C-alpha cells in the first residue's frame, strides 16, 4: 500500500468536495445556505493545508474563518434577512456574462499554471514544527523576519476596531447625557442645558 496513493485519493476527494461547495456558495439562493457552503469550502482548504504538512495553519484557518468570519457572516444574515427570503435570480444576460468572465479567467489561469514551473517555491521544505517556526519568524527582526508586518497588522487591527466601532455607534451612551457622545460636532454650537460654571466658554485652550 503506497502512501502516495492514499494522499492522491485524499487530495482529489477534498478538491472535488471543495469545488462542489464553492459552486454551491455562489449558486445558493438562500444566503445562509451560501454561508454554510462557504464554511465547508474554508474547512476543506484547511484540509489542503494539512496535506501540505502545515497543521498549524490549518488549525488557524478553521479557528479564524469558521469560528470567526463565517459566524459573523451568519450573524449579519440573521440580523438582516429571514428564512423565506430568496435571492433574486439574475437575468440571463448577467448569468452569461458572469459565466464568460469566470470561464475566461479560469482558462487563463489554468493555461498559465500548466505552462509555468514554480520551481523555486515548490522546493522550499516545510518546517518540522510549524507553530514554533511561524512564531519565530513573526518575531524575528533579522533579514528573514517578519516583525514589521506583524506590528503593522497589530496597528491595522486597532485602527479597524476603532473605525468599526465609531461607524457602528449610533446613540450617545446613557451614562453620558451631557456630552454629545460624538453625535453632534462640538461645543461651540452644542451647549449642554445644565452647565453654568464655565464662564470662559471654552476659549482658554488651543
Amino acid at each position: 500500500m503506497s502512501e502516495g496513493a492514499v494522499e492522491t485519493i485524499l487530495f482529489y476527494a477534498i478538491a472535488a468536495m471543495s469545488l462542489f461547495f464553492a459552486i454551491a456558495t455562489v449558486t445558493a439562493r438562500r444566503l445562509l445556505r451560501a454561508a454554510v457552503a462557504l464554511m465547508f469550502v474554508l474547512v476543506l482548504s484547511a484540509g489542503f493545508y494539512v496535506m501540505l504538512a502545515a497543521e498549524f495553519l490549518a488549525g488557524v484557518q478553521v479557528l479564524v474563518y469558521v469560528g470567526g468570519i463565517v459566524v459573523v457572516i451568519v450573524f449579519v444574515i440573521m440580523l438582516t434577512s429571514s428564512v423565506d427570503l430568496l435571492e433574486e435570480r439574475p437575468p440571463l444576460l448577467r448569468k452569461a456574462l458572469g459565466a464568460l468572465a469566470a470561464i475566461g479567467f479560469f482558462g487563463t489561469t489554468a493555461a498559465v499554471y500548466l505552462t509555468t514551473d514554480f520551481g523555486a517555491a515548490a522546493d522550499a521544505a516545510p518546517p518540522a514544527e510549524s507553530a514554533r517556526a511561524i512564531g519565530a519568524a513573526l518575531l524575528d527582526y533579522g533579514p528573514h523576519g517578519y516583525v514589521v508586518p506583524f506590528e503593522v497588522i497589530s496597528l491595522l487591527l486597532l485602527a479597524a476596531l476603532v473605525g468599526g466601532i465609531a461607524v457602528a455607534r449610533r446613540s450617545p451612551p446613557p451614562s453620558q447625557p451631557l456630552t454629545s457622545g460624538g453625535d453632534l460636532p462640538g461645543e461651540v454650537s452644542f451647549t449642554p442645558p445644565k452647565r453654568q460654571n464655565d464662564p470662559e466658554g471654552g476659549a482658554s485652550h488651543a
Partner: protein
Amino acid sequence: MCMLPELIVVATALTVLVADLFLSERRRVVLALLTLVGLAAALAALLAAPAGSLFGGRFSVDEVAIWFKVVFLLASFLTVCLSLDQLDGRVKVRVRGIGLRGEYYAVLLSTLVGAMFLVSARDLVTLYVSLELATIPLFALAAWKRSDAGSQEAGLKYVVMGALASAFLLYGFSLLFGLAGSTDLAAIAAAVRPSPALFLALALVTTGIGFKLTLVPFHMWAGDVYEGAPLPVIAYLSVASKAVGLAVMFQIFYRVLGHMVKDLGPLLAFLAAATMTLGNTVAIVQRSIKRFMAFSAISQAGYIVMGFLGPDAGGVPAMLFYMLAYVAANMAVFGVIIFYANATGRERIEEYRGLARTNPLLALAMMLALFSLAGIPPLSGFVGKFFLFSIASKAGFHWLVAVAAVNSTISLYYYLRIVRQMYIEPVYPEAARLPVTPTLAATVAVTTVASLVLGLVPVFYEVIHNQTIEWLAKLVG
C-alpha cells in the same frame, strides 16, 4: 533611526486616542492641535533623519521613500487642517452625524502610518499589510457621517470594491512569490523572467493598484464614494490615497520589474489614455462638486501614470513633483469647497455663483488652484505636466502626448465652468461676505502660494530630481 517619523505618527495616534478618553467634549478641540504637532514633528524627523535601513533591510528609507513620505505627511497635515472646523463644530451648516474626533484623528493617522510603511517595505508581506493599513481605515472614514445614508453607502461600496481589489492584488502577489520563492522584492526582481505567469501576476497586481489609483476601468467606486463621504475624507482620498497607489505601483514596477518596466509601456500608455479621457469627459457633465472632483482626480491619475513610461528612471522625479503640485492645488480647491460647504451647505457647481463678489480672495485661490490642476503655464500643475509629457514623448509615445494635450484642454473647459460660476454668474440676492475660520484661510493661502511657488521656482524640482535620480539609476539598469 530611520523609523522615527513612523514611530512619531503611531505615538501621536495612540496619544490622541487615549487623550480623547480623558478629555471632556469641550476640551477635545486640543486633539486636532495634538495631531498637527505630531505630524509636524514627524515631518521634521523625516527631513532630519538620514536614509538608512532597519531589520536587516526589511525596512529601508531611501530618497524616493523620503519624498513619498513628504507627500503623505503634507497631505495628512492639510487634511487635518481641513477637518477640524467640521469636527469641532465651527460651522454654520452642521454636517449631520460627524463627530468622534479622537477616533477620527487616530484612524486618519493610522492610514498615514500604513502609507509610510508601504514605501519603506522591502518584501511583499509588509507591502501588502501596509497597503491594507492604508486602505481599511479609510472605509470607516468614508462612512464617518453615521446618520447619513449617503455616507454609509459610500463606506459600503468602498469596502466591497476595496476587498475585491485587495483580493486581486494578493493573488498577484502570491503568483510573484510562487515564481520567485521569496517575498523579498530584490530577490523577486532577480528571479523573475518574462513569462505568462509573470504577466498574469502583473495584470492582477495592476488591477489591485488600479483601484487605489482610480485607473479606468477600476475607477467605478470613485464617484459614489466621493459623493457620500465627508468632505475632508474625500480630500484625503483624492490626494494621499492616490499617492499610496502610486507608491505601490512604484514598488512593484521599479523595484521588482525595474529591468523590464519599459516593455510594459504600451499597456501603461493605454491605461493612462483611457483614464484621463474617461475622467475628463465624465467630469464635464457633473453637477455636484464632489462627483466633479472625483472625476477630476481620476483624470489626474491618468496623467501621473505617464511617468512610468520613461525609458530611464526620469519618470520618478517627475511623478513625485507632479504629486506635490497636485497635493497643493487639490487641497486648495478642497479648502474652498469645505469652506463653502461649512458656511452655506452648498455642494453643487452652479451654487458657487457669485463667490468672487462675496469672498474675492478665496475665489481667487480657487481659480489659481483650478488652473494649476488644468495646467496653465506659470503654475506648478503646468510644470508637472510638462515633465510628465516630456517623459512620454521621450519614450516615443507621441500619440499619448497628443491625447494628454487634448485632455488638458478639455479639463480647462470644465475647470472654467466653476470659475465662470464664481466670477460671471450673478450673486445670490441675499448674499453677504461669508466668514472664514483662521485655519481654513491659512490652509488655502499656504496651498495656493505653494502651487504658485512650486511652478515658479525651479529649485524644488531640481532637488527632487537630483536626490532621486542617482539613487534610481541602480534600479533601472
